[in-house]
């Protein structure tokens, strides 16, 4: 099993519903977020091109955050999802410094927090992650890459895609359809 997500940059309008849905679903402390929307503008007016991306932890297959965690708090869970076990985390910040995407943040309670792909609270119950299910343009696809019929496998077969900073060697599992 290999959970992954694809975000369609051609459909995303940057409404930030995914951000709010995540904050509500996962009780993200006020002032923090586990996902965010990036808008990239290329060119000079009037020749402008815009790419909008809903970003979060990439659940990297070769994740520096898991590698550098001294206690094993950061670990690979089912389907390659990268999780943090709060009562193993000492809050040393090594994983935060190690993430090329700045996807982690220090939770006010002391441990480190980040996107979980909603693994325990939704995905294990057969639901999509909160961000995926709330998106009004249906621009996100989630599922198991080992299952050829999962939404994410299907869309990656038909569309061109990219990952972020592949040169960092992290092998991200968050794909952007372009």
């Amino acid at each position, binding site marked *: 099993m290999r959970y992954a997500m694809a975000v369609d940059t051609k459909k995303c309008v940057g409404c930030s519903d995914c951000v709010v849905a995540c904050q509500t679903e996962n009780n993200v402390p006020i002032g923090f977020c586990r996902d965010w929307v990036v808008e990239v503008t290329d060119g000079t007016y009037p020749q402008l091109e815009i790419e909008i991306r809903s970003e979060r932890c990439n659940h990297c297959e070769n994740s520096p955050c898991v590698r550098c965690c001294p206690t094993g708090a950061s670990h690979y869970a089912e389907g390659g999802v990268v999780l943090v076990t*709060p009562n193993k985390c000492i809050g040393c910040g090594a994983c935060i410094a190690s993430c090329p995407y700045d996807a982690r943040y220090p939770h006010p309670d002391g441990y480190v927090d980040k996107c979980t792909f909603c693994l325990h609270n939704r995905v294990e119950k057969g639901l999509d992650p909160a961000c995926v299910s709330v998106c009004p343009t249906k621009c996100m696809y989630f599922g198991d890459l080992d299952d050829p019929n999962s939404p994410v496998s299907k869309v990656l077969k038909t569309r061109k895609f990219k990952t972020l900073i592949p040169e960092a060697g992290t092998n991200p599992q968050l794909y952007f359809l372009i």
Partner: protein
Amino acid sequence: MREELIVSGRMNHLIDPQLNIWHWQIPLYLFLGGLAAGILFFAALFTILGKEKEYPTAVRIAPFLVPFLLILGLLALFIDLNHKLYFWRLYTIIRLQSPMGWGAWTLMIITPLSFVWCALNIKTIFPNWNWKYNWLIDLEAFLRKHVIVISWIILIYSLILGVYTGILFSAFNARPLWNTSILGPLFLTSGLSTAAAVVIMMSKNIHERHKFARIDLMLIGIELFLIVHMFMGFLASAQVQIDAASLFLGGPYTTPFWLFVVTLGLAFPALLEFLEIKGFKMPVFIAPALVLMGGLIFRFVIAYAGQASRWLY
């Protein structure tokens, strides 16, 4: 032209707008760790070489600082942790891939060893010291018999600790400035140099002082060589590393680095030490104090500049 904006608003504390997760604690911890490693290295080395009598400060006196340095360093690390109650989790697992993890284990081994070293030399400081209990006297005799073995263990662990202070940073490929394996040897050399400075400060014996001034001169030379190599490596590398180097070449860290670390912390004390060896009368404290200050600022500069360097996408 490309403009990249987080439009949903993200202001995660200590992450945005620029990573700022590590503050004074980590560079201080690395400085103290490097200094302690250096002092132990010289003590063990000159014991193995059978030169305890020639370099009494390095072998018998300076190591008394080490337990304090290590405990202060660990305290700084502890203050840095955000989830302090779970500190013990560091010691329920061995994770060789995590520098933070094996650093914690190295300290766990070298701190008691530094206490052993002090115990073996306690009579230098307190000539009338009495262990009182027979088993302690026996234990001391046993350890003394194996002092060469202990020295070798300390020598190896001090090198590991010294290199670790640099590898803690260099293992992060997310921060291009840190991501150079030269930081390991560079911080080791800097730690040895600060330790030599401490011996020069504490020693009352001119022969020992000159020997350590010579050692320090050599170490400073190696450091400058490694720094030049670090920049050559950055400038010949990918754009993110060129950007990282530019933090020091015109960027915000140019003055602290070139003035306080390279000029006042390395080149100037090297000149003073050179003149002292050549027989000029120099105030004993200035050169080693500058070396210590340079070593400390060096770690601060690398810690902060590293967090300012990043991948762009």
